[in-house]
């Protein structure tokens, strides 16, 4: 069993349609740990020691957040700035995260077609996540493409929230039970709920 830690970050929860549902799903799953970063640090005063010991105690870290200005919500950046210390996460003696995994679960307001050379976002979604990907490399974390929902603004009207939430549940449980196929996932651009790289239980 993998020890999975879900970090949820959303500064405007009251108005969230999708992420609040996803957070509810993650919170309910047995034997994984769930942290609402904005609830824990509403004043951005991150407890570095505590966060680092959390990281040491888990095998897989998953950050769940809505894309905000082509990046993470600001508290996630603050968390990265403070917690991934030199000598802990990288640099001389910084091997605390060696062999662990980094996963993402993001939602993007724009539809998938927008993230293309002729779309209005011009670049694929993964391009905007490059800083996180390279952060993982520097910290010896294996990076997995993001579990993604495009067009989240319209997702409610188009009944796409429930399937995405159900996919999220299956994904988290698969990671927990070592049934998630990280090798297959690594080949994907983004992971979506209709093509989850999960082995069945018998194979595990």
């Amino acid at each position, binding site marked *: 069993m993998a020890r999975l830690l879900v970090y949820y970050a959303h*500064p*405007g*929860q*009251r*108005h969230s349609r999708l992420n609040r549902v996803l957070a509810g799903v993650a919170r309910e799953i047995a034997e994984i740990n769930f942290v609402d970063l*904005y*609830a*824990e640090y*509403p*004043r951005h005063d991150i407890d570095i020691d505590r966060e680092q010991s959390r990281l040491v105690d888990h095998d897989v870290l998953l950050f769940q957040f809505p894309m905000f200005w082509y990046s993470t919500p600001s508290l996630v950046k603050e968390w990265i700035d403070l917690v991934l210390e030199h000598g802990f996460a990288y640099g001389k003696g910084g091997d605390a995260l060696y062999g662990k995994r980094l996963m993402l679960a993001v939602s993007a*307001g*724009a539809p998938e077609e*927008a993230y293309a050379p*002729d*779309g*209005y976002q011009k670049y694929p979604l993964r391009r905007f996540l490059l800083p996180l990907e390279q952060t993982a490399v520097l910290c010896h974390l294996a990076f997995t493409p993001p579990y993604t929902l495009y067009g989240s*603004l*319209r997702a409610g009207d188009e009944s796409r929230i429930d399937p995405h939430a159900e996919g999220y549940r299956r994904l988290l449980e698969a990671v927990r039970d070592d049934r998630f196929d990280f090798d297959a996932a690594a080949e994907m651009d983004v992971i979506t709920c209709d093509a989850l790289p999960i082995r069945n239980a018998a194979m595990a």
Partner: protein
Amino acid sequence: MSDFLLLTFVFLAAGAVAVPIASRLGFGSVLGYLMAGILLSPLLDALGVDVISIQHFAEFGVVLMLFLIGLELEPRLLWSMRRRLLGLGGLQVVVTILIVTGVAVALGQRWQVALAIGMVLALSSTAIVLQTLNERGSLKSDGGEASFSVLLFQDIAVIPMLALLPLLAVPGLHETAAADGSHSGGFGLMEGLAGWQQALITAGAIGVVVSLGSYLVRPVFRYIALANLRELFTAVALALVVGTALLMTVVGLSPALGSFLAGVVLANSEYRHELESSIDPFKGLLLGVFFITVGAAINFELLFAEFETIMALTLGLILIKVAVLYGLALIFGVRNQHRWLFALGLAQAGEFGFVLLSFAVASGVLGAGLSERLLLVVAISMLLTPLLFIVYDRAIRPRHLGTGQREPDAIDERGTVIVAGSGRFGGIINRLLIGAGYKTVVLDYHAEHLERLRAFGIKVFFGDATRPDLLHAAGIDEASMLVIAIDDRDKITNLVRWTVENHPDVYIVARALDRSHVYELWAAGARDIIRDTFDSSIRAGRSALEALGMHPYDAELQARQFARDDKASMRELADLYDPNMPVHLNRAYVERTREILAEQEKAMRGGPQMFGDRNDRAWERPTQADVETVEAESKAAAE
């Protein structure tokens, strides 16, 4: 009685006239007093006043001054000065005595007389030098500390000198000296005792001063502080110094040294600043009188009759002393221009010279004629001291300014923060400041409270922070900031007003008790005003929101918005506030308050639309319509 009143009036008035003039001209108060004394001397002559006996009385000002200096000097600091105290001070006394004695022998005096003259002239004036250095704020500079070391050693050296003088007596002169023993105060008590007994009694007396200072003074002052009577405190403080001086005199020690010791013992006590402010005016008055008597005691008849000889002797003495002092300053590593401050500052003979002279005459060492002339040399060298300081200021200091070799002043107490009040509000401020490495001086007038804080190792001083003299003693002149954390509304306002008026450079952080108090303080001149329960109330409210199920980050945003709104409305209402009217009777104020409250409530709850709430501005997302517009634009651009 009327004589006494007349004399008191003459002295006070002379000081009041002369000192401001001298200060304005940049000469310092000492020269002002000396000049006043010179101008007064004909009048005092006419009144038949015994100037010398007044002088002996006023010398007690020196005792008070040394007590005050001791208060400023923690034992640790004194210990760190030991090398200079013994080395610099000791060598200055010995070398100067030797040279002056040699010169006197060369001028035809017998060696015993010459040695007596050497001892008389080797001493410098503690009163003039310390008063001047203190006024200039350079007591804690390198040169100031070196000067202090030498002066302290000299004060101690007076004792063996008094013991030595009678041994130099010339048989022919001795019949005039019947009452020699009584002159040095209480030597009588020690007479007939063996040397080891005297030493034992002396050590015992010092032990008494130290242990009383350490263990008895605090409970006594705490008891008195509870009575809350200012004059009682002053009386006890004076009694403390006078008693110490008396004890020292009885066992044949220098009273100045004794009170200095008492001061050092009390330097760590919480009553330090209160003691300072109680004693300080007495010291100032007595020293003033002392300086006036020095000026008044100059025998002009004799001076004009032998003007050249006496001036030559005086200048010669000053030259010798400057040379010795400068040489020693070089050896002991006194820096740059401080060497000159030290050498020129200590170049005069001092008030202990007067004491030694009259004792020497009484012991039959010196003849009356010689003593008269030496008295003039001592007095004129003292009179010239302010001029030497002026020479230093005009000729020497400017050369060291701007040449890049001026080192930072070693003034260690600059830029401190005074925290007035150390209760629940001030205590936390103080801990925060100390934790960040700032030096604070904490004042509080709850004696029991202080005791508790002291137990935790927090440095606090007893005293009512709203009294200017106490603030002065606590160093408001050098402080960069005053944090007013006391809990009496009117006292806070008055303190702000006083500080803004008298110390406009001191930054004020003021505690306000409520909103209308904020307006009051603003009107009084404070610009950094903190309502004492505002922030904690907001936190309590936020905590309540969280407990009611609101997401902690939303609760945080709500609290921030509330604080912003409150500040904005406070600024808006400031114009309507009328200090002469209770707020609930101020109709315009009440009306506008109601309007603002209604507006705020509406805004906080949010409008009917999705993102009507101001807290959500940062999180307002693009709408589907926005997305479609951008989409269309980008397509149009591509085609």
